[in-house]
């Protein structure tokens, strides 16, 4: 393919789609706000937050401060806490769209209990990205780059966002020496595990706490459409621990993301 037949990555509008539980969001928000400051681009936030917490990512903290030892149990937030978190999000991120993801939406779903660590995460991702799509539809515009992360995740070094953003601006899509894809949709993500004891020593670059997903073009939109086939509905579920041919085996959230991306 010659140069004249290739598209050029030209990012003007960026959507940051925040999802999931707020958890230690207060401690992270100033960093996140500063992290996403970049010149010559427009950056908008879209925020969906859950009305409960499962703090399995901080078991020692839970045990010592809250007395919680079953880290997978959902701890519903009271009205005051939800209002506080909502206000923090609205004040600091000024999202174009915001919603509290309701537990009642999950209670009607088949198999949701068994797949608590995975399907619920997937639901939150879908909800956040679809907030962004609703805004695009209402305002007749599109985002060139969509980034997905949680409120309690920070990524470093602090210039990582700008470094990658400015690094890919102007690249010719399809150039195998830069980005190995013939498509205009590019998606990459980092499963960040440096602080989980079982993952120390893995090949992953220690640059944050959990998941950071980038999607160019409409790749994250399509990813959500695909993910919908793996979220239990009120009528049917693909949840299984054994069947691989069509149903989705829910083993690990990150593995689930990778599996969907491959499709």
């Amino acid at each position, binding site marked *: 393919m010659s140069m004249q037949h290739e598209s050029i990555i030209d990012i003007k509008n960026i959507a940051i789609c925040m999802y999931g539980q707020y958890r230690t969001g207060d401690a992270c928000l100033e960093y996140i706000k500063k992290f996403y400051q970049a010149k010559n681009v427009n950056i908008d936030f879209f925020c969906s937050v859950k009305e409960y917490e499962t703090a399995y990512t901080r078991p020692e903290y839970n045990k010592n401060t809250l007395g919680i030892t079953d880290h997978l149990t959902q701890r519903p937030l009271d009205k005051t806490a939800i209002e506080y978190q909502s206000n923090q999000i609205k004040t600091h991120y000024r999202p174009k769209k915001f919603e509290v993801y309701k537990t009642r939406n999950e209670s009607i779903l088949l198999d949701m209990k068994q797949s608590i660590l995975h399907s619920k995460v997937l639901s939150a991702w879908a909800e956040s990205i679809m907030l962004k799509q609703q805004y695009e539809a209402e305002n007749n515009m*599109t985002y060139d780059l969509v980034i997905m992360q949680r409120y309690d995740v920070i990524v470093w070094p602090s210039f990582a966002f700008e470094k990658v953003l400015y690094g890919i601006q102007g690249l010719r899509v399809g150039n195998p020496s830069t980005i190995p894809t013939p498509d205009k949709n590019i998606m990459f993500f980092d499963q960040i595990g440096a602080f989980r004891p079982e993952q120390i020593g893995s090949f992953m670059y220690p640059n944050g706490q959990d998941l950071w997903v980038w999607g160019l073009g409409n790749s994250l939109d399509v990813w959500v459409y695909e993910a*919908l*086939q793996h*979220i239990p509905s*009120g*009528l*049917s579920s693909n949840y299984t621990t054994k069947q691989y041919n069509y149903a989705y085996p829910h083993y690990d959230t990150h593995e689930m993301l990778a599996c969907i991306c491959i499709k």
Partner: protein
Amino acid sequence: MLIQNQPHILISLASDIIEPNPIRNDWEVFQRPVVTSDKWPQYNYTFEDQPKPNLYDTYKTHWLNGIDMWKKYGQHALAQNDTTVLVNDVDFFFSPLIDLYHDSPPNTVVFERLWRCSRYAGYSLPSHTPHPVPDTFVTSYSNFMKIVSIWKWIDSHNNTPELLSNDTAWLLVLRTIWKYNLIHTSTRWKEGPKV
């Protein structure tokens, strides 16, 4: 063979004709006029010598309908292929497509017009190269949105005109079907124009 459980059917119409729709009362219709962008004329196409709305504009209109479906029903009704979307420009007799869809494996897209193209005979026999006129089809909400969001893919990243001017409506859809690994079939598989 897996038989799909389809308890929910929605209809997406992209039509300038806005009037009470005679389609079955129990199938909810999401309808809006075709958006006009004056972009990408290479995606204009005709059927039976009649000009059709530009595919880019048509799909963008259906995508807007899809967003309305999400806003009304959310992921819990739309997940797991539990919602079937019937797609056309105007009112249409969808029953043959629905019957075939229900007898097909999950994730199948059933086009109304899809055929082997003699123009590409070198590829058609071994690979069943399809030649869809992609404005009438039945599939899940998930696959519906994958297909109609092509308009956003087209707009991405300062596309060079040289690339897209060589593109056509059916090549675009064909590429998308392959890219997303969608199963596809047609109620009129053996029919088609001589090209």
